[in-house]
C-alpha cells in the first residue's frame, strides 16, 4: 500500500498526465457531441476520422524530416502538420455527411439507418487506410521535434514540453470553437439548428449548410487530436480510432451529449479518472473504473453532467 505522503507525491504528476490526455479526449468528443446536437446521430466514423488525421500528420512529418526544408522546431512543425491534417479530415467529414448521411435523411430515414451507415463509413475508412498504408503501425518521430531533454520541473512535478504543448494546442482549439459557437453569427445558427431546426430555417438559416459546417468543424478538431495523440503515443495504426473513439464518445456522454462544454469537461474528467486508476488501482482496471464512473453518473444524471433532461426522441 502507498502511504499518504507517497500518494501526495505522485498525485500532481498524474493529474497533469490525466488532464493532458483528457483535453485530447475532449477534442475528439466535441465532434461526437456537435453532430449529435443537430442530427441526434452518433457518427461512429468519427474515431476513424481522428485516425486519418494522425496519418496525415505522420506523412507530413515524414516529408519534413526527409527534406530538411524547415528547422525541426515545434512552433514551425506543428502548424505545418495540424493545418493539412485538419483540412483533410474536415473534407472527409464533409464527404461523409454528403454521401453517407444526408441522402438517408432526405429520404426520411429512421434513426437506425444513418447509424448503420456510420458504422459502414467507419469500416470503410479503416480498410482504406489499411490498404494505402498497410496494417503495420507507423512511428511518429516525436523526439526529433520534442527532444527528451525538454522537461520542466514545477513544484516537484516534472513535465515534458510535449505534454504542455499538447494540452495548450487542445485547449486553444477548444477555446477557439467556444468563441465561434458563442459569439459569431455562424455559431448562433448552429445553436439555433440544434434547438429548433424548423424555426432556424424560418430565420433564413440554410439548415443543411449548417449541418455540413458542423461536420467539417467536428472532423477537423478530431484530425488535430489525431496529430497530438500520434506525438504522445509515438505509434499509430489503422485501428487506433476504435478505442479512442469509444473513449471520446464516453466522454461526450459523461459530460452530457449534445453539450459542447460538456464534451470538454467529460474529456478532462475521463482522462483524470483513467490516469488516477492506472496509478492507484491497477492499469488493467483503468477502463473498468472509467466506465464504472460513467454508469454511476448516468444512473443519477441520465443526461450527463451538463446535459439537460433526456432529449425529446420525437424531434426527428
Amino acid at each position, binding site marked *: 500500500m502507498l502511504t499518504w505522503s507517497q500518494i501526495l507525491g505522485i498525485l500532481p504528476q498524474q493529474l497533469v498526465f490525466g488532464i493532458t490526455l483528457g483535453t485530447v479526449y475532449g477534442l475528439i468528443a466535441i465532434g461526437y457531441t456537435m453532430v449529435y446536437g443537430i442530427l441526434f446521430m452518433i457518427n461512429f466514423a468519427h474515431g476513424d476520422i481522428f485516425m486519418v488525421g494522425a496519418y496525415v500528420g505522420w506523412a507530413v512529418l515524414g516529408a519534413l524530416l526527409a527534406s530538411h526544408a524547415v528547422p525541426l522546431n515545434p512552433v514551425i512543425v506543428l502548424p505545418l502538420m495540424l493545418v493539412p491534417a485538419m483540412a483533410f479530415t474536415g473534407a472527409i467529414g464533409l464527404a461523409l455527411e454528403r454521401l453517407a448521411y444526408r441522402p438517408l435523411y432526405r429520404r426520411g430515414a429512421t434513426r437506425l439507418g444513418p447509424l448503420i451507415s456510420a458504422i459502414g463509413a467507419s469500416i470503410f475508412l479503416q480498410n482504406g487506410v489499411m490498404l494505402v498504408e498497410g496494417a503495420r503501425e507507423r512511428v511518429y518521430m516525436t523526439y526529433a521535434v520534442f527532444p527528451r531533454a525538454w522537461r520542466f520541473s514545477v513544484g516537484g512535478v516534472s513535465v515534458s514540453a510535449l505534454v504542455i504543448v499538447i494540452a495548450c494546442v487542445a485547449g486553444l482549439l477548444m477555446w477557439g470553437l467556444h468563441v465561434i459557437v458563442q459569439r459569431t*453569427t455562424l455559431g*448562433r*445558427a448552429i*445553436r*439555433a439548428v440544434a*434547438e*429548433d431546426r*424548423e*424555426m*432556424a*430555417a*424560418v*430565420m*433564413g*438559416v*440554410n*439548415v443543411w449548410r449548417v449541418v455540413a459546417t458542423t461536420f467539417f468543424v467536428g472532423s477537423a478538431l478530431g484530425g488535430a487530436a489525431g496529430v497530438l495523440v500520434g506525438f504522445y503515443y509515438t505509434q499509430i495504426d489503422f485501428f487506433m480510432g476504435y478505442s479512442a473513439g469509444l473513449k471520446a464518445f464516453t466522454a461526450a456522454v459523461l459530460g452530457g451529449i449534445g453539450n459542447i462544454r460538456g464534451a470538454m469537461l467529460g474529456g478532462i474528467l475521463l482522462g483524470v479518472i483513467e490516469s488516477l486508476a492506472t496509478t492507484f488501482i491497477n492499469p488493467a482496471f483503468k477502463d473498468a473504473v472509467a466506465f464504472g464512473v460513467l454508469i454511476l453518473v448516468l444512473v443519477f444524471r441520465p443526461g450527463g453532467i451538463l446535459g439537460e433532461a433526456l432529449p425529446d426522441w420525437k424531434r426527428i
Partner: protein
Amino acid sequence: MTALLQLEQVVTYYGPMRALKGVSIEVASGEIVCLLGGNASGKSTTMKTILGIVRPHSGSVHFGGERIDGLPTQSVVERGISLVPEARRLFGRMTVWENLAMGAFSRRDRPPDEIEQDYERVYTLFPRVKERLAQLAGTLSGGEQQMVAIGRALMARPRLLLMDEPSMGLAPIFVDQVFDIIRAINGQGTTILVVEQNAAVALGVAHRGYVLQNGRIVMADRAATLLATDEIRRAYLGDEEDGAC
C-alpha cells in the same frame, strides 16, 4: 389592387391526409388579412406551405409577382416573409438579444448600422424587451415571449408578416396589446396575414378575412361584414350561449 401574396388552388398533403383542398387567398400590399378557422382546419398548414416548410402538391404560391412554392424555406424568408409562430417557439437556450439577432440572420450581409436601426425599432415597440436582453428567452413569461417573438420576426424587415395564433395562451390584457401592436406594425407599412381562432379580436383589427374549414375556404369578405355574419357569430363568437368569447 396588386396582390403581394397570392395562393391559387393550393393542395397540400400532411402525411397521407389532404390538409388543404384547393385554397386560394390573396393579400394586398398594406393589408391586414385574417385567416379564421378551428382546430385542424388547415390554418397552420397554410402558413407552412407559404414558407416552404411543406410543399404543395398542386397549385401555386406567388409573392411579389414571383412564384415561391418549391423554394427552400431560407429563400422564401430572404424574399421578405417572416413568421411569428404558434406558441412563440423562441430559442429558449439563447438570450433575448441572440433571439433578435437570429431574426436578422437573413440580413446578415447588410451594414451593421442598418440592423442597429431595426433593434431600435423593436426596443421602441417593446421597451420591456430592451430590459431583458441578457436574459435567457426560455425564462421569460408568456407575454414577454410573445413580444420577443414579434420583435424577432420584425428584425428581418419583412414585407409580409405571418402571425400564427398570436393570442393563444396569453392573458386577455396581453391579447389586446398584441393586436394594438399588429395595428401599429401595419401602420408602419408591413403587410400582415394573421391566423386566429379568436375571431372577435382578429376581425376587429383586420381589413379582410377568410374562413377556412376542413381545408377549404368557405367564406371571404371584408372583416366588418364577416363580423356581422350569423355563421361567424355562432361558430366563433359563441353568440348562442352567453355572448362571451
